């Protein structure tokens, strides 16, 4: 895996191994925030951004943790540092770019304890990605998450106008839709295997 090309990593992460639809990561925000298109897109953007931050943090931390032989602190340090970093970014944004803060800020705290974020950190460590690979992976994960979120939001907005049977309302409907999307995304399996 460590020798995979960047485009391969990106394509596979966005489509074939989509974080939400193939890896079951980030399901809570996926189910929770996919009701409307106009929130789905900023949420996706904010998540992508946090993933990038998390990926950077995790890369540095992993380096430190491995160098000092403190593997057992990896998880704790990841989660604490990522959460703090996001908090920091939030503060900086609030101070220097209020517009961007208004657009993304409200989503940031929601995102911090999202398994997709930690997932990016853990997977890039497990797959021993290089620095650049890790960044591409994080962006791919974010784009994939956004894609799934936006598709889902579109479908759910449309179903708001449908007469869906009562027993299918709520989480059940969202999961079934996610299942259908996941089924459709299976078509991308193996995409980019030839490089």
């Amino acid at each position: 895996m460590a020798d995979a090309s960047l485009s391969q990593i990106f394509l596979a992460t966005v489509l074939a191994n989509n974080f939400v639809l193939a890896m079951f990561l980030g399901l809570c925000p996926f189910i929770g925030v996919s009701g409307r298109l106009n929130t789905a897109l900023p949420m996706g953007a904010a998540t992508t951004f946090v993933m990038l931050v998390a990926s950077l943090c995790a890369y540095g931390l992993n380096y430190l943790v491995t160098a000092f032989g403190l593997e057992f602190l990896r998880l704790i340090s990841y989660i604490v540092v990522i959460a703090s970093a996001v908090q920091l970014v939030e503060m900086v944004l609030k101070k220097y770019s209020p517009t961007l803060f208004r657009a993304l800020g409200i989503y940031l705290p929601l995102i911090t304890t999202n398994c997709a974020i930690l997932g990016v950190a853990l997977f890039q460590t497990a797959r021993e990605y290089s620095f650049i690979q890790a960044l591409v992976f994080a962006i791919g994960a974010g784009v994939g998450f956004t894609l799934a979120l936006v598709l889902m939001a579109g479908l759910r907005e449309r179903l708001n106008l449908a007469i869906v049977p009562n027993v299918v309302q709520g989480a059940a409907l969202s999961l079934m839709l996610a299942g259908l999307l996941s089924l459709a995304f299976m078509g991308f399996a193996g995409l980019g295997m030839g490089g």
Partner: protein
Amino acid sequence: MKQGIPFHLKPRSDESLFTPHPNGKRMFSFFHRHTFARGVHPDAHKSTAGSPIRRMPFASRMILPLAQHIGKPAVPLVRAGEEVVRGQPIAKADGFLSVPIHAPADGVIEAIELKASARGPWVESIVLRVYEASTQQVGWSQPCDIDNASPRDIIQAIQDSGMVGLGGATFPSHAKLTVPAEHKIHTLIVNGCECEPYLTCDHRLMLEYPADLMIGTRLAMRAIGAERAIIGVEDNKLDAVEAIRRCLPADGRITVQVVPTKYPQGAEKMLIKSLLGVEVPPGKLPMHVGVVVNNVGTLAQLGQLLPAGVGLTERVVTVTGPGINKPGDYWVPIGTPMRTVLEWAGVRDVDAREIILGGPMMGQAVASLDVPVTKGVSGILVFDKLHVEAERKIWPCIKCGECVKVCPMGLNPSMLGMLAARREYEAMGAAYHLGDCFECGCCTYVCPSHIPLVQQFRVAKGILRSKSA
């Protein structure tokens, strides 16, 4: 003399059916005839176009609602028991946006009371018992020297004539021809499209009274200060075009132009787009692009009434439909009850199912035969059992997109319909431009799911109006 007309609105040749595009896209002009986008092509059913307008006799009792126009109802000038002569004003305008009403026949006022109206609710109406001896002679007039009158005089004379938009809008004509100072009108468009199926009253008027139409057109041009007038006629009425062309004045300020037959070609904004290639922005009026549109029927009638100084007491009505024995265009005195009209024209069988005032696309079904013919009634259609389809099953929207393909206003009726079904009225108004729908009916016409879209939109508009009020 033509410096007031913007370059891109330069008059087109009235010679060709295939007018070249003003932007010079000549290549496609053969394929792309000048018209608005989308729309539908319903069957014309204009069988009455071939026979001359006939005159309908007076009914024994006439009903004249005080509100036959948009605006404040007229104020009665007569009391019960008073005798009136044909043409005499029996109600006066109440303010600027209002018009007087004239007695359609000699007779005696029976009462001023609530009577059934076409829209449903009972409205204040003057009931006139017609003397059997009443003649076509107009017993009252206030002649007007049209050649020397100022625009203001003309507008006053038009208001006094009680004229409203005869195409069905019933907007007082003088108000329409009163242009606020900030707008410079360069073109008067005379709407001779009559795009509704079945209706032929305008067609016959153009054929039979082209000279009156010219007089009316010139009066209107003077009133609004337009440099030119374009009479737009659909290409299924070429005989009318020919009749008008023979009467066109030599100065070339009035032209006639043929537009493709397509519904709703006769809608103001659509016709402006077809003739001039400009689109009136949403929420704006034709005068914002320097245009005023008037119906041919209105102008032809004006051309008759104004020089003589008489009021509007009769109009041409197309009485037709599969349920009518003697279909045709009739001069019908205003106030004639529907029952009388139908008796005269003959209803084919007792199983007439639907009686529609106006055209089949936008007209209104009436519940009572006691409803009178008012100024805005251009047609009376009677559909029999065969032609009124049995209750059609309504399916959910299958998103075929036909409605989107035909909506002349560029709306998304499919989405609007689904929103309406979920009562999301705010979204309809805010995000999907419900306010721009003028209920032409194209969407419902094509909908394979038989969703009553226009009706849903009407309801939604009403709710939005009452909310914002």
